[in-house]
């Protein structure tokens, strides 16, 4: 290579600078501002010095904040569990039982719904689950009782989120399954293990990184989802994102809203780190 490391570094930095400057100004600075606001003194529409931990104390003292965070956490965990459990066999099927030249067609089919109008898909569920909606009218037309699932806000939020984020989970699991050395599986079976035991002792541990990636890819956006609780849950069961909106925009309290956003992000971060650590322990000290 002709380029010395020094000139290479300069060329690299120069090339990446437009993108880097953009994300620093429009992402890093705003995130830092939220962090700063969370420790400033605020009121309705005002924000000022001195620095204070009052906002976080307020979060701790009023049960509503904890309730919203815990509820969002539980909903997101249930949704994550459902999506990953449902997605694993599909990823397994595509990786192990579909002819190589057909694999990208399957993946394409699975990813299409993920790219097609999120807002339309969620809104459709509103029509499907709602009172006198598609499910209820189908049930009554065959002589059964309507279920009116939409009246159970949390249940319908879980159904809709599990559906909306389903394709997210398939891809990372598929990628890790593709990396599994097939000869290891044959070795397992040659040594007399049944296919099921081979799966549990070889395939599953080897694909845990993919499972964890799937868990994170589903968990993080679901815990911060805004549209579903607003539309399907009829706004009766706000989650973190809806509550941030209330605090920041409706109550116009930047300091308190920022503190809630920061606390929520800390919780999401802590849970994500816990998943990653759990994974390390599970596969027994791989890097």
């Amino acid at each position, binding site marked *: 290579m002709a380029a010395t490391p020094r000139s290479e570094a300069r060329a690299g930095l120069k090339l990446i600078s437009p993108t880097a400057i953009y994300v620093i100004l429009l*992402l890093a600075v705003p995130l830092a501002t939220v962090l700063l606001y969370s420790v400033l003194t605020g009121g309705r529409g005002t924000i000022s010095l001195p620095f204070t931990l009052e906002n976080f104390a307020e979060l701790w003292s009023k049960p509503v904040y904890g309730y919203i965070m815990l509820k969002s956490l539980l909903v997101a965990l249930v949704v994550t569990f459902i999506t990953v459990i449902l997605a694993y066999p599909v990823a397994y099927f595509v990786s192990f039982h579909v002819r190589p030249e057909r694999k990208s067609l399957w993946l394409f089919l699975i990813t299409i719904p993920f790219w097609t109008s999120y807002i339309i898909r969620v809104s459709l569920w509103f029509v499907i689950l709602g009172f006198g909606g598609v499910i209820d009218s189908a049930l009554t037309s065959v002589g059964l009782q309507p279920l009116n699932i939409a009246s159970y806000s949390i249940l319908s939020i879980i159904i809709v989120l599990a559906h909306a984020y389903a394709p997210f989970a398939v891809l990372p699991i598929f990628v890790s399954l593709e990396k599994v050395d097939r000869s290891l599986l044959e070795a397992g079976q040659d040594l007399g293990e049944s296919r099921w035991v081979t799966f549990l002792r070889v395939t599953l541990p080897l694909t845990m990184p993919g499972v964890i990636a799937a868990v994170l890819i589903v968990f993080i956006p679901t815990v911060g989802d805004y549209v579903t609780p607003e539309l399907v849950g009829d706004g009766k069961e706000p989650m973190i994102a809806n509550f941030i*909106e209330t605090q920041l925009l409706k109550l116009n309290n930047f300091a308190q809203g920022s503190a809630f956003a920061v606390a929520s992000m800390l919780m999401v971060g802590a849970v994500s780190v816990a998943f990653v650590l759990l994974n390390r322990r599970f596969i027994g000290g791989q890097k």
Partner: protein
Amino acid sequence: MKKAPLLHGYALFYLLFLYGPIILLPIFAFNDSKVVAFPLQGLTLAWFREMAADQNLRNAAWNSLIIALSVASLSTVLGVFAARASVRYRFPGKAPIMGLIMLPLVLPEMIVAMALLVVLLSIGIPLSLFTVILGQVLVCTPFAVAILTSAFQSLDRSLEEAAMDLGETPLSTFRLIVLPLVMPGIMASFLICFTISFDEFIISNFLGSGQPILSVYIFGQFRFPAKVPSMLALGTVLVLFSIILLGVAEYFRRRGIAKAGGKDSGGFL
């Protein structure tokens, strides 16, 4: 390949589950009833006519188109810079910079939108379509970088070196050799970013200050039962539209891989 009828059946059932709501779209968009419920009432094109006549909808669609074209262009350009730099060069601070660029992939969109909104409101920049574009570019750039990184990775370095040896400048080498080879990746990135932007709701809603934007308009209309059938007609059109766009993007992605002589590992990500 071994046969696995149970798994195969499950996978097909899973696809049906994924597509269930989307299949309902055209069914009820052509259904001659104001209520979205079974039993079906016969065919009509009335909802499509109502959709086409809606002036607010047209404004919203026009705004969304402007936003999506700007976002797709800007994200792809920023993506080319970042992907090229990260594939081709080693430089200090690469990991944190790339981490920051990719961060919106793992950050709830609400946080990105609110952080940006707080800053815009604090320095007094009025919300407009322009602020929506600024925000959406943050969300789309990671996808552009992901697609373009794989395009640049499959590039053969010796081709560039040959061009330089034959007397081309770095810039003309990029234009004559690199750009044509990564063109399919650029097209795929543009189309994917366009699709994401066109569907995007959170940033359009909070940074748009009530400007009519398609996703925000749809979200609002679903609250009025009388408007639902024409929204389903709109949904049918939009889903068809995105499937076509994605099909074209997939075509470019595969052509790019084939051009570079790589093996298709499937999927956009």
